[in-house]
Structure formats: C-alpha cells, structure tokens
C-alpha cells in the first residue's frame, strides 16, 4: 500500500460524514442526482445526513420541501421514472404513515405493474431507532415493514465504512432503495454514538454489493445475526461472553432485501446455535424471517434458537420502560447463554 493509501484508510469518519461523502461524490458525477427533504438545506439534516451539501450544490439540488411527504416522496417517484436519480429523505421513519401509498403502492410496485417497462431509481433515506426517550412516534425502526412489502431494497448500515459503500450502491441502483440509518450511530454531537460506527473510510469511491452480510466477529459457539445499532450491542455482548469462554460469531446483515442467507446458514452450520437480535417489533418481523429461512434449509444444523427483539409494544417514553423493551447487550448476552446451554 502506498503511503497515501495508508493515510486514506487511517482517516476515520463518523457514519454521517461517510454517507454525505458518498452522496456528494455521486452528485458531482451525475447531474441527475438531487436530494429533497425537510431541513436538508440550511440545517444540513436534523441528523447531519446532508451537512455541508447546500454549500457545494445549492438550493436547486439540495431542496428543502414543505411538510408534504406524500407530495415530495411521490415527486421523487415521478422524477425517478423520468430517469433522474432523486434521493428523498423522510426525517424519521415513523412518519412513513402520512405517505405510505407513494412508498409501497407506487415506488415499490410500478416496476412490477409495468412489467418492467418502468423503473424507479430512487433512494428513500430515513432515520430510525430509539434509545433516547423520544417515545412511540419517533423511536421505531420499522425495517421489517419495508422488507415485508415487495419491490424495495432495504439497506441498514452499522458503520461508516459500510454506510459509504452502501450509499454509493444505493444511488447507482436502478431500483428503489430504502436506506435506513440509525440516529444513535450517526455521530451527531448531541446524541453520542457508541465506539463502533466511526471507522476508517477510504477517500475514493467504493461499493458494497447488496445481499452481502458481513461477519463482524468470528466465533465458534453461537451465531448472532443482527443489524444497525444492535451490531454494536451484539459485539459488546460477545466480548463479555468471551470472558466466560463462549465464542460468539456476529453477523451484520447490512441489507434485508436482498438477504444474504448463505452467510447465515454457513455460520449456523458451524455453531449450531442461532440468536437473532433486532430493534424492530418481534412478531411478523426480521427475527422470525431469519429463523424460518435457517429452519427451511438447515433444520438439522439447528440445535438452539433465541430471538431478542422489541416485545410487541409501542416504544414507551420513560427511561426505565424504554430500557426494558429495547434490547441491550445484557439481553443479547443472556439469550446467547440460553442458546449455548440448551
């Protein structure tokens, strides 16, 4: 590696800076890329998702829009169908309710309903997640809902390195991509991130293909499958378990659609124990889907299964209750122990 390459890789970025770098790069390369959302211009995105972009690209391409999600998300669909490459931001994923038709009946289905005659190359970005007591209407992840409805690729980065590569890929993809970033991972001044998401990030562009899960920690005794913030909580749990001689493998899904079942199955074949961890609601969701896919193809490998997710309650406001329902590293630890001892 040249000295310059070395320096580049040593450069650490927060997740938000890494995302913005990919967006800026794509905007420089392609005039057809633009960004729409509430408070994305002067504010730079409530969660720093567009910080600094207005200065470089101006109001025509970094567009503040009225609080009319149906209109502007739908407008992104329309512009994408004209061949442009819009990125439209929903400030919190929880707000999808006011614009869901444009998302799941238009954006996600137009390709199929047109028999492939139309395509919708847009990115829908949204902030997800809790852990800071913002209560039931501002703390959900809802990954599973997008992944359940056919026609959307669903990306959930957990580190700056992944965030950049996945964003390049999302903008270049010819299909609609829902890119969900966890607020707690962005590295925002007022919401301290855990240690993990700030990583070395090369200055040059690179893509991370969708459907490639990443083994964030190798282990022999149990497979922990997770995504987003909970990758870091699972790694913390794995460190604690290692002290007791339990060696957990941690798989970061990175994308839910497409889902890399191969990496999961290989790991379970090795460990025999599967623990799925998710910050979304438990029932009818990501945890059930992963377990079902392993059961379908590798039931014989499976000696124990546990899942850790938000029990089926809306997210409560008060600290003791939110801490109770959002899985933490101790919850993951105890689930791995249960699986291990089973």
């Amino acid at each position, binding site marked *: 590696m040249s000295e310059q390459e070395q320096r580049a890789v040593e450069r650490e970025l927060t997740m938000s800076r890494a995302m913005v770098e990919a967006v800026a790069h794509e905007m420089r390369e392609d005039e057809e890329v633009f960004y729409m959302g509430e408070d994305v211009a002067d504010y730079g995105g409530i969660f720093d998702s567009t910080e600094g972009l207005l200065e470089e690209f101006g109001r025509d391409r970094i567009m503040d829009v009225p609080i009319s999600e149906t209109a502007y998300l739908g407008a992104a669909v329309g512009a994408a169908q004209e061949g442009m490459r819009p990125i439209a931001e929903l400030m919190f994923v929880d707000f999808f309710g006011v614009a869901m038709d444009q998302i799941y009946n238009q954006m996600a289905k137009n390709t199929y309903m047109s028999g492939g005659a139309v395509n919708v190359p847009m990115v829908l970005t949204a902030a997800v997640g809790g852990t800071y007591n913002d209560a039931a209407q501002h703390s959900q992840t809802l990954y599973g809902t997008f992944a359940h409805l056919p026609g959307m690729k669903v990306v959930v980065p957990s580190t700056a390195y992944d965030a950049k590569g996945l964003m390049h890929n999302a903008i270049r993809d010819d299909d609609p991509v829902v890119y969900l970033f966890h607020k707690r991972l962005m590295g925002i001044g007022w919401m301290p991130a855990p240690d993990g998401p700030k990583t070395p990030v090369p200055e040059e562009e690179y893509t991370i293909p969708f459907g490639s899960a990443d083994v964030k920690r190798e282990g022999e005794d149990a497979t922990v499958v997770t995504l987003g913030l909970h990758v870091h909580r699972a790694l913390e749990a794995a460190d604690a378990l290692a002290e007791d001689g339990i060696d957990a493998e941690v798989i970061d899904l990175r994308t839910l659609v497409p889902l890399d079942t191969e990496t999961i199955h290989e790991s379970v074949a090795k460990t025999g124990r599967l623990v799925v961890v998710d910050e979304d609601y438990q029932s009818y969701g990501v945890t059930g889907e992963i377990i079902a896919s392993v059961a379908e193809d590798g039931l014989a490998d499976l000696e124990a299964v546990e899942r850790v997710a938000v029990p089926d309650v809306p997210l409560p406001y008060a600290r003791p209750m939110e801490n109770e329902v959002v899985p933490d590293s101790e*919850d993951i630890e105890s689930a791995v122990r249960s699986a291990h001892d089973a």
Partner: protein
Amino acid sequence: MFEEMATARYYEERLQEEYLEGKQPAFDISAGPIPGELHLAAGQEAAAAGVCRHLRDDDTVTAPHRPHHVAIAKGVDLKRMTAEIFGRESGLSSGKGGHMHLFDPDAGFACSGIIAQGCPPAVGAGLAAKKRNEDSVAVAFLGEGAISQGAFLESLNLAAVQQLPVVFVIEDNDWAISMPKERVTDVADGSRRAGGFDMPGVRVDYDDATAVYDAAKEAVGRARAGNGPTLLEVQVHRRMGHFMGDPESYRPDEDVAAAEQRDSIERLADDLRSEGVEDDELEAIREEARERVDEAIEWAKEQPEPDPDAAYEDVFVNPPSGVTAQEPDHELAGGDD
C-alpha cells in the same frame, strides 16, 4: 387570559432549566431529568389563551408537538402533565407518552407528534358532538408548517362538507424548524386556505391576545351554534429554538431579536393597565403563576419512576387472552443504556 399566558411562559422557562440540567456542557439528548425532544412554546401563548378562553371542559382540543401552552390554557392537570414530561409514574400517561403525547380526557385534551395528525381526530370529536346533538366544539391547533400536510387539508374539507363544529387554529411562528414560511408556501396568509373549502378564514396579524379572543369568540360561537367550521390563523413568535438544543444557525439574529421584542404578554399587560388594572394586581397574578408552576415541578420530581414491567401494560384495554403484550421468554434486562 393573562394568567394562563403568564403561567405558560414561566412554565416553559422552568422546563428549559430542568431540561438543560445534565445536558451541559456537552448536550446529550438522552441525559438529564427530562430526556428526549422538548419543543417549548414561549412566544405563542396568545393563540392558545385567546382561543381556549371560549372553551368548556367538554370541548375537545388537539395540539401538535408543541403542546404545553395549549394544555395549560385548556386546563390540563398541571401536576400530572409535568410528571408525564419527567417520565414519572403519576404522569398523565404513567410515563408512556412524554411531552409530545399528552392525554387528559377530563380536560378534553390530546396531542400528537406527527404533523397535522391532530386535525382528523378533532373533526371526529366535532362529528360525535353533531351526531349526539350536543353543543360542544372541537379545536385543532397546528403550526404554519403543518398547513402543507394532507391531513389538514382533508380535515378542512370533511369538516366543511359535514358542517361540523370545528375550529382550526394555525399558530404561525414563521418557522418550521429551519424552513421559513415563504420557502414552503406561496400564500403568506394561511387563513386563505379556508376559501378553497368555502369556510370562513380569519387571520390575526399580530400576537395580540385580545384580537385572538375576539376572532375566536366568533369562530367558537359559530361552531357551537351549528354553523360549521372556521379556520383561524394567528401570528405568534418562536422565542426559543425549534427544540431545545437547536443551534438555530439558520436563523438571522434580527429575527430572534424581533421575536423577543414582540412580547404578547407585555402587550396584554399594557392593555390591561390602560383599562385601569394596577401593576401590583398583575404582579400578583404572575406570582401566583410562578408558585403554581414551581409546585407542579417540585411535585413531579418527587414522583416515582415507572416500573419497567409497566411497559407491557396498556397496549389494549382488553388484552387478548389475559396477556398485555408479548413478554419475552427470557428476562429482558432493564440495563442502563
């Protein structure tokens, strides 16, 4: 009105202090006695006080994410509301809702953190009153940023076509977070939206509580008499950031200064003085307001935090087969994350 306005202003100032505790020097949204987002309404008191003065306990009010001044004007239980904001067991919602999700059915008050989504339920309250031949009314408060939202426009239409007893009140504080009004609508006077639905629309151009009172008297009277909805817009001012911790770097200094200068409470005090009210009478009202607020905050802080397991209750009033929610089969640790 003066009393509610003075109470609301002091309440927001005190909450700001409490909120910032534990969040300095480095601001961490999840630290301190009040976690999460906090949207304070200092500078918007006139709209709430002028309108709610005409309301009874059986009238319904829905407020948006910036609800405290409206709640105070509508007579929400101040102690239990404060306990809710502090996330305590004796809060209005036992700590489940927090500051954007205050519900006090006894006072006819509810709010929502999703823009404009209080409008349809207000229409529903008006519908119920009409169906039952009652003369209660419903009022939906929203910000000027919210008037671009479908739920608001659909609600205007439904209320108009059904001639429902509803008043929509736009609190125009010029800003939707960082977006100035002129960037998101070409119609400076939001009350003109009413014309599209053939309902009366009135704008009160200055946050003058007396002018709001007069305009609201007519609007609420019309609704109560069964003559249908009205859209009211009131110019107010945002004296603080959008939420606590908002750096407001997008906002020109002059705009902040102007908001500080135009103080609707001082204006009302001047009006009252010119009508012969003595200074010490006004000061006595302020003093009483401060005592009430301080007492509510003290009380709230003494209340216990909720039991973590309470999180599983209240998903349904009628939990299926006796379970409230799906408790995990292994113990979920409360933890200190």
